[in-house]
């Protein structure tokens, strides 16, 4: 602006326009977007599945010259129908954070991390790991992966480590979130197979949410519940009166860890009332009689007694479950993260089976998954399962994988991997000396953190591959490998309803950061095993390998052509066979929402589902005189994700959650202990002591406390108890003491 114009501009008495007004002017954007800020008007858009949770929403990324400038929720995608949670809306912000890892960093002789070239980083990686393996055997190096990277990368990581580097033990952070559902489904249905489609939220008459708070943990799934036009009964089983419990028609605030007895009591009552679907049981299940006999010890009175709930209320619920209406069960971490989570999940599967509530619209025993690619990890991570839901111990499975991938069969380990907790234990025993973390933050998220920090000292070499150099884990690493994040790479995620969706590169990675896929390629070269992975040249090429690995498996996706096919159809649920008959009806709206077991055939060899059950056990660490409170943990707000390495990088998201750790306390307990609202308190368990701010809420029952998992201090309190079948940590309950903090 010229000085004259500037003065003229300043001399206007009424300024209805000008440079400041211009900043917020909107313009029609085309691409079906409606009006958008003129300054961010895109010249193209592209759809990409979000990289946070397993809902798998599609985001429409607004591009200028190929690079993302903004995004909005994708209206046309069958998952989210134009909606997104705040994390999705803010998905681009964490990419621009100032603490992105932009160069490999190696801990030098002075004990400090310093930037090094990729070449030196690769020398350190291969040199240190190979020398550890030479001294202690190939199994002395292990890896811990994630459910946060694309399927092609997960498969590459597992294949590279196990087939290329000779690693035996590898697991992922999905152990912390989905392992229980996996085992429950495997045992009951014969395969890890969440049976539902999100459409079931809209088509159900009775939705029973157990240990789940979708209102804030999966808001876009809750959107589907709210779209239900059948005037449904919404039952929430949760000790706390969560946001979801507030929105429900019935809330059952059961005593913590009385859940298994509760569901056995309900099953007993359903049978007693004769409300079972005997025809379905006879035709499609096994072991019902044994289950019925087992239930004799668990009547509804017993359930009412241990859960502290009213008998009549439970009786009404039993009648509702057996009413013949469409009943669906939905569970999340309140079930999975339990020392008897597998049996608990199966107690709901049992109820669904005995009332015929499976394979029909609005029904099912349905696990809501945690991470964006938990399911991809379950199928292809090559950790405790051999690639594609196979078994390492099986000669024929190893041969099949060798055949499909061209990897020499002798390179495929014949033993399964340790689970996450067993890897940690093996480090403590000195059996594992080298550890490689990929896109996970063990030094924040793992249970009983003090013990983990102590065990870390026993590692000779710790490599952490991450987007940021400031996570709790990178800070204690010996080598940091800088990784590209969501939005900086291509591949597919598989969501909770088995939908495979594409995520895309819309930004350049900063500095020298590389996609995890390319880091694996680089490692393969430097390790000297690149020839094994000649076909693994791009995510798209690996996708074709994954298709071949799926052939004949329950999740057969040989009918999916390529990435473009996924784009055209708005994601595709597994299975999709290449055979022409499996394409029938797929053009219709219904074809976009497919559920499993419509034919009543399950994946066990005899086609029948199993009733799985076991006597409930006492919780591992019940409150006592010294530690009189039971600490529950879980999601804090919808704007927080896990260990906050990404959500903590968005100004908008940071405004939407409390900055520091806090603990929710019932006002009665608080007044008894003289704790004031917003006062500082000490929370102490047998494993650690932390400070937190007190939030007094009647939604937390007396005797219980709740702390969100997003603050690093929480896991200094949690106890390392595990489900014996799934090895999933029991994050949800440990005994603590509470007192006013003097400082």
């Amino acid at each position, binding site marked *: 602006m010229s000085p004259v114009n500037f003065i003229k501009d300043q001399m206007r008495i009424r300024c209805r326009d000008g440079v400041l007004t211009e900043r917020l002017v909107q313009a029609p954007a085309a691409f079906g977007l409606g009006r958008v800020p003129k300054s961010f008007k895109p010249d193209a858009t592209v759809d990409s599945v979000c990289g946070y949770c397993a809902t798998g929403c599609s985001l429409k990324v607004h591009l200028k010259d190929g690079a993302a400038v903004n995004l909005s929720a994708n209206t046309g995608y069958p998952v989210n129908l134009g909606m997104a949670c*705040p994390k999705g809306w803010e998905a681009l912000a964490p990419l621009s954070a100032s603490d992105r890892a932009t160069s490999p960093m190696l801990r030098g002789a002075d004990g400090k991390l310093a930037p090094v070239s990729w070449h030196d980083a690769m020398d350190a990686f291969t040199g240190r790991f190979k020398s550890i393996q030479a001294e202690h055997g190939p199994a002395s190096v292990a890896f811990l992966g994630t459910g946060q990277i694309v399927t092609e990368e997960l498969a590459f990581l597992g294949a590279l480590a196990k087939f290329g580097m000779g690693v035996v033990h590898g697991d992922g952070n999905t152990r912390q979130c989905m392992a229980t559902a996996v085992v429950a489904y495997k045992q009951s249905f014969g395969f890890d197979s969440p049976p539902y489609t999100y459409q079931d939220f809209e088509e159900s008459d009775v939705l029973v949410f157990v240990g789940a708070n979708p209102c804030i943990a999966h808001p876009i799934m809750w959107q589907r519940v709210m779209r239900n036009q059948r005037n449904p009964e919404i039952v929430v089983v949760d000790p706390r009166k969560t946001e979801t419990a507030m929105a429900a028609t019935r809330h059952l605030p059961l005593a913590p860890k009385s859940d298994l007895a509760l569901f056995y009591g309900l099953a007993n009552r359903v049978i007693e009332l004769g409300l079972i679907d005997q025809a379905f049981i006879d035709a499609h299940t096994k072991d019902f009689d044994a289950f019925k006999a087992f239930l004799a010890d668990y009547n509804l009175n017993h359930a009412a007694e241990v859960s502290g709930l009213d008998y009549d209320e439970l009786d009404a619920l039993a009648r509702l479950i057996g009413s013949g209406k469409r009943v669906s069960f939905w569970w999340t971490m309140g079930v999975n993260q339990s020392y008897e989570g597998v049996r608990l999940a199966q107690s709901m599967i049992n109820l669904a089976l005995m009332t015929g509530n499976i394979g029909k619209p609005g029904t099912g025993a349905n696990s809501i998954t945690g991470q964006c690619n938990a399911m991809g990890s379950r199928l292809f991570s090559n950790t405790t399962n051999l690639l594609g839901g196979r078994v390492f111990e099986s000669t024929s499975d190893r041969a099949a994988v060798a055949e499909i991938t061209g990897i020499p069969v002798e390179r495929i380990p014949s033993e399964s991997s340790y689970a996450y907790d067993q890897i940690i234990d093996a480090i403590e025993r000195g059996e594992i000396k080298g550890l490689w973390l990929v896109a996970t933050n063990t030094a924040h998220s793992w249970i009983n953190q003090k013990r983990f920090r102590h065990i870390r000292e026993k590692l000779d070499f710790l490599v952490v591959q991450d987007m940021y150099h400031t996570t709790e884990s990178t800070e204690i690493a010996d080598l940091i490998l800088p990784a590209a994040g969501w939005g900086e790479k291509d591949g597919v995620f598989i969501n909770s309803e088995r939908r495979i969706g594409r995520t895309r590169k819309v930004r350049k990675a900063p500095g020298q950061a590389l996609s995890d896929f390319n880091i694996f390629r680089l490692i393969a070269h430097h390790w000297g095993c690149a*020839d094994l992975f000649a076909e693994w040249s791009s995510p798209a090429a690996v996708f074709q390998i994954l298709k071949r690995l799926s052939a004949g498996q329950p999740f057969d996706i040989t009918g999916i052509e390529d990435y473009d096919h996924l784009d055209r159809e708005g994601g595709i649920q597994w299975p999709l066979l290449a055979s022409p008959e499996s394409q029938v009806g797929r053009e219709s709206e219904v074809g976009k929402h497919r559920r499993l077991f419509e034919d009543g055939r399950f994946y066990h060899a005899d086609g029948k589902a199993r009733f799985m059950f076991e006597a409930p056990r006492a919780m591992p660490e019940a409150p006592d005189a010294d530690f009189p409170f039971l600490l529950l943990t879980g999601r804090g707000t919808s704007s927080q994700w896990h260990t906050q390495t990404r959500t903590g990088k968005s100004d908008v998201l940071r405004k939407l959650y409390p900055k520091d750790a806090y603990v929710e306390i019932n006002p009665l307990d608080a007044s008894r202990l003289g704790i004031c*609202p917003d006062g500082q308190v000490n929370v102490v368990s047998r494993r650690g002591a932390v400070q937190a701010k007190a939030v007094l809420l009647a939604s937390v029952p007396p005797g219980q406390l709740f702390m969100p998992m997003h603050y690093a201090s929480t896991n200094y309190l949690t106890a390392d108890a595990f489900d014996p079948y799934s090895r999933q940590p029991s994050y949800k309950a440990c005994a603590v003491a509470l007192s006013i903090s003097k400082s």
Partner: protein
Amino acid sequence: MRDAASANHQPLPIINSSLTVEDSPIEILLKEQGTLQTPVSVFSAQHADADADADAEPAQAQFYKQLIPLSKPGAGEQYAFKVDLDRCTGCKGCVSACHSLNGLDENETWRDVGTIHGGLAGASYTQTVTTACHHCADPACLNGCPVLAYEKDPETGIVRHLDDQCIGCQYCSLKCPYDVPKYSKSLGIVRKCDMCHSRLAEGEAPACVQACPTEAISITIVNTDSVATIARAGGSFLPSAPDPEYTAPTTQYVTKREVPSNVEAGDRYALRPEHAHFPLVLMLVLTQLSVGLYAYALISTDAAVTHYSRLAALLAMGIGLAASTSHLGRPLGAWRAFLGLRRSWLSREIVIFGAFSAIAAAYTAVGFFDQVPVGLELLLGAGTVGSGLLGVFCSVMIYHDTQRPFWNFPVSYGKFLGTTFGLALAAYLAVLSLVSNEAVPMVGLIALLVFFGLKLGLEVSQLTAATQSDMTPAKKSALLMLESLKAITASRHGFGLVGLLCFAAVLFGAESVWLPVVGFVFLLIGELLERVLFFKAVAAPKMPGAFTS
């Protein structure tokens, strides 16, 4: 079909010694990572004829059409947000969507989601509350703006902020009881929700309405006058939100749930010091000092003392007014401040202090000329003091008019008059001590001690609210002063008391001419600290927020 994404991937060369740097695997991978696939060659991006489908209905319209009115508001009507609390479950998607679809600055948000909770164990109640600008029937922001940078759109009732008209005085953010207008330091102006007026004008829903997964937010049409009437008649707005009587907010919160009587905001106990507004601290203390000093100059019988007092007063006024302009984000537009005279106390203050500065300058200049008639000098003096006192009154009203209890009329007036006559008396006595041969008059010293005794007593009385059982705004202010601001509070009283001791020493016979000067400096610092507390310890009303730590 050839998969497009593989086009950029090439096989890595097997490492051997004959490779050049450019051929090394690392360089190839970095190059690949640094390449964005261009839309034309690779993406199945929707590239489209932007022009062709620019006029087409937005895809999202199928979901939001029913959430906005079919027709425009009629006469006496306006658009209003309607929030179905039973459908709001706290996902906060509205906050982010508003941010992204309006292209706001990185740390700028126009919506917020808070909570209210209550009840008892077993029958607890928690409600998330989405909130933005309430487009009030009687908008306090608009009423307070000195340059008419707010407009209530005559057709839609949307309270719009004219960004280029704004001078960044931030008075609207003090006036709004809902904490809506937010100041951007980089832009030098405030901005706020405009209900996506340009979207509504085109039949599109506001960003928050488009983005709420549970359709909790919609746009409705209300009768503006009845909103105001109901608010004035004690109608309910939202439990634990500020009283709607002040501005008559139009947002309609509806619920079928029974709200328990003990419901409170999630951030009820949050103690957040507000901005100190240092330029305003200087401006208030120094203009008041100036006005008072002119008053003492006027009644002084010693010509030299009068002259130097006027000079000191002029200096204080100059620094004070200069400081006040530095408070503005866009001071070049400050000349428009007369526009708001009809409604804004800030506008009045600016105009009156403008007049005061001119008259006071003339009155001060008199001291340099011998032939000025006594009548004229008296007139100028009276004009100076009169306009100055009127200006101080406006200053009080600026803060009183925000309806914040900590700033209510008697207390603010007490503080400001205390500075005007107490601090100025100290300054006057210091000048007198320096330029006059006579002893510092005892009556002046006693008056000074009385003024400050009363003023400090008034301030201490505000601290006693800390013992109230209920978390009132007064208690919040007291707790702030006693806890996070306790260093300032202690210093304020420390400087005040030391200053008074200096003058008490003079009263009891100490003979140093510098003692009153030192005493004045201590009192001045004490007053500046008092004014810092004035701003930082005020309990600002806002919509119920979430718990913060």
